């Protein structure tokens, strides 16, 4: 017990405080906006913060490096089974089967949220177990790793929840790209994707096609209202009472998917740049964590995965609000009102902090600097 406590001291020593400090202003602005739109949702959001904090602390203290070898396969398998379960006994809402009702407690869960963690975890584990050679992964390993991503992708895409599915796909392959895959494979993939694009389009659902064609034509009512909100905010933004687009409910789902539009209306171009800057710094920081820890594939995969997650969520969310992408229903990460997504991000942050604290080299080699120095030049 004492030894355990002693070990946990490392956590405080190697904890990346900057990362946590970077998130704070985002949470502050987000909760302020939610409070202005709906104080009841603000209270709920505060509860989510508490839950997320607890989840974060717990995941910080879980010795991931020790349990990963058995935990990751169980976690991944359970999540896959849940996804299959959605297919079999899921609840359909607005034409999309995404939820499972847990018997007894009457709670519905969305397995596609959890699969993101398990895919990142699985990839990180497999990569750390068999790191890529100098030239990057060959075809055989690439296909093996791709299956980890593609199987849940197909299951989610079939629900259909193309937004989440694409997030998973891009995050997964983003990690693989950063870790290293033979460039010829990428060339092959892009060429064949380009050639098969028309076929892929035809396999989409009608409502997905409609979204795409809507996006090509005039902006939908939702997007139009979002544009008006952002456009009327101007450089400085407007006071709460003057933010009529949101306060008088012209802007739809203003606390969750479209919260960025309220940000534009309330705090103007400056406010949007501030939030955008915060995201950019966070993403860049995460990428640099990956770069700095390129010897430790677990950290590298997790940090890069988290960076990609943030990037795709915020990119797609803002692009759809400003009419540059179809409306796919992705929230602004750790900013939109909502529990599940927020808690999962907190958990991923916790895992990352834990991994950072218990770096392999430090644990097993007292003179870690030598080990690191000897490995570092291998990477570009």
């Amino acid at each position, binding site marked *: 017990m004492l030894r355990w406590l002693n070990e946990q001291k490392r956590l405080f020593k190697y904890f990346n405080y900057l990362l946590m400090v970077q998130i704070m202003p985002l949470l502050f602005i987000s909760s302020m906006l939610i409070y202005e739109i709906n104080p009841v949702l603000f209270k709920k959001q505060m509860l989510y913060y508490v839950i997320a904090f607890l989840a974060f602390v717990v995941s910080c203290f879980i010795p991931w490096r020790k349990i990963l070898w058995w935990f990751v396969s169980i976690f991944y398998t359970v999540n896959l089974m849940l996804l299959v379960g959605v297919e079999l006994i899921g609840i359909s809402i607005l034409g999309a089967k995404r939820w499972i009702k847990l018997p007894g407690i009457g709670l519905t869960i969305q397995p596609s949220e959890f699969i993101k963690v398990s895919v990142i975890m699985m990839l990180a584990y497999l990569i750390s177990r068999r790191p890529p050679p100098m030239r990057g992964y060959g075809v055989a390993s690439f296909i093996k790793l791709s299956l980890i991503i593609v199987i849940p992708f197909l299951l989610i895409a079939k629900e259909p929840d193309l937004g989440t599915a694409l997030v998973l796909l891009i995050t997964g392959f983003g990690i693989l790209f950063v870790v290293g895959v033979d460039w010829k494979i990428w060339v092959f993939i892009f060429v064949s994707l380009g050639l098969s694009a028309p076929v892929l389009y035809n396999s989409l659902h009608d409502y997905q096609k409609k979204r795409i064609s809507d996006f090509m034509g005039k902006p939908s009512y939702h997007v139009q209202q979002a544009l008006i909100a952002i456009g009327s905010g101007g450089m400085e933004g407007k006071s709460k009472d003057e933010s009529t687009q949101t306060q*008088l*409910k012209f802007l739809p789902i203003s606390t969750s998917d479209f919260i960025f539009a309220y940000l534009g209306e309330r705090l103007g171009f400056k406010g949007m740049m501030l939030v955008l800057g915060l995201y950019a710094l966070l993403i860049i920081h995460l990428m640099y964590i990956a770069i700095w820890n390129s010897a430790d594939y677990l950290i590298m995969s997790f940090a890069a995965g988290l960076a990609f997650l943030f990037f795709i969520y915020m*990119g797609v969310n803002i692009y759809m609000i400003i009419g*540059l992408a179809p409306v796919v229903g992705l929230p602004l990460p750790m900013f939109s009102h909502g529990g599940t997504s927020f808690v999962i991000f907190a958990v991923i942050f916790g895992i990352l902090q834990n991994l950072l604290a218990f770096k392999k080299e430090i644990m097993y080699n007292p003179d870690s600097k030598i080990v690191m120095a000897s490995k570092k030049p291998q990477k570009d």
Partner: protein
Amino acid sequence: MRYKIVFAIFFFIWGIMIVRLYHISVKSNYYYEKLAKENIERTLYIKPVRGEITDTSGKLLAMNRIGFSISLKPHLDSNPEKLEKIADRLVDTFPDLNKTVMLNVYKKQSSPYNHKHIKVVDFVQYKDMMGAYPQLANIDEVLIETQTKRYYPYSFYAAHVVGYTGRTNSKEAEEDEVADEVGEIGKAGIEKYYNDLLQGELGHITNKVTATNKEIEQLEYEKPVDNRNIELTLDMDLQIMIHQRMKGITGAIVVMRTSGEVIAAVSTPSYNPNLFVGGISKDNWKTLQEDLAHPFTNKFVHGTYPPGSTIKMGVAIAASQSPKSSIYYPETCRGFITVGNSSHKFRCWKKHGHGKVDLRKSIRESCDVYYYNKSLDMGIDTLSSSLNKLGLGVATGIDLPREYNGVIPDRAWKMKRYKKPWYMGETVIAAIGQGYDNVTPMQVARYTALLATSYLVTPHFAKTLDGKKVKPELKPVNIDPYALEQIRLGMYDVCNTNGGTAFKTMSELPIIVAGKTGTSQVVSIGQDVKERIKEEEMEYWKRSHAWLTTYAPYNNPRYVITSLVEHGGHGGSTNGPIVADIYKWMYAKGYFGSDTNTTETIHFVPKAKIKPPKNKLKMTDFL
């Protein structure tokens, strides 16, 4: 390298994002600010109350009946059973309603974005609603609002004057914002001519609203400008009396003050304008359209007829104004003339001729040959332009929509219309009001007033518009005094001397009337016909139109009565009794006041001895 690619992609995507955000929020700020304002401002128009129309004594000719409209809550079609139930309930209460129509109206207007109540019943009368109100008002989905509906209490008695309102069509809605909002617009008669005044101007309330159309605060309020009434010069009692007298007769009668105020204008048969309010049914429309007596045609401004002999006074004035002709020389009537080398005989109505005819006699006996010769002397263009100046063949300017001009032909008109030159024979025909000549009864009334007073007036129905008095328009016309005197004497003779064409009926009246009859042929009479068949023996559609235009009292003209009976045969015998009855009625009602003249008190014999101006005349002009 790999990280550089990743960062390049990141920054590229962020770059586009920033440029786009800058464009929306800073560059297009003004545009989106405007859209945001449009979002929250909802303007509700306040419909003005349409002005009412009364006759000269204040009798309501067009009024707004108060009743109710029934609207249903929006978004009910997601629950068809409930909608059906409510519709059934309404049909139970008001058996006249059509359930299918109601449901169709509802479905047509219902949409997820329509948060307003949907009107399914336009109008329910006050008395019908009284019993049903307590029950219907309890149904949550039903909204009952007050609603006005145009109503014409005198129905067909004033239809051709007052006109009617109907539903605004899409073209009218585009041109007229008020009519668009109110959904009703004047379609005919006074209702159309003075529509802008009657319908008033919209008021509005501008509210700040939420996305679900909930009002938050009032930003602006402006009252409508409405209740602008019109008083007409019409005397409804006279109008009704004439209508009843004209029962079964197709034609038009205009009773006008010599100042231009029309006190009765009747076109028979008439129609019920109430059928048009809120849209006429197909069956009713078909019946109106297919009636050969054309009840829907307003015959006093839209009916054009050859003026027949009533034109002769005008031709005489034209002759007096032309240097090539003279009214100081009598003509000799042998019963016909021929023109040029043609053997075609232009006959006088009197087979054996009138002998020597001067102006007064030519009017009293309506000698055709006299006018044949005068017209040949002056030529058609002179004749035509003079007649136009007397108000024939030109619109009178009356306050009714789309008045017809009629035709008094000249060379240019014929060339344009038929691409043919003018023939001398046509001049002759035009001089007795036949051929191409076509005038409306209103034109003849106006022209008669001119003969009586030497003023050309603008006939009008409006006495006051929104409380402001309408000033009569009088235009003096310079007419040779000798000609005018002889014409008036001739017209006096027509009604007051034995042998005058309207003597029988007009001479018995308590006032002295002067006038002229006219018989305008519908079919021409063949050259080989020696004896004309009597009008009564002809087929109805071939019978001539009968005119009688009069003014009274003779020495102080105050009223003009012009009467036209379609296919009525001879002017005097058909119209005489009708016009006489009108004068009798007016006399009895005190229209002539103390100003009545009996035969004993009038001294009409002309004292003026006007010598023909010799220097102007050369005998060659008449050869």
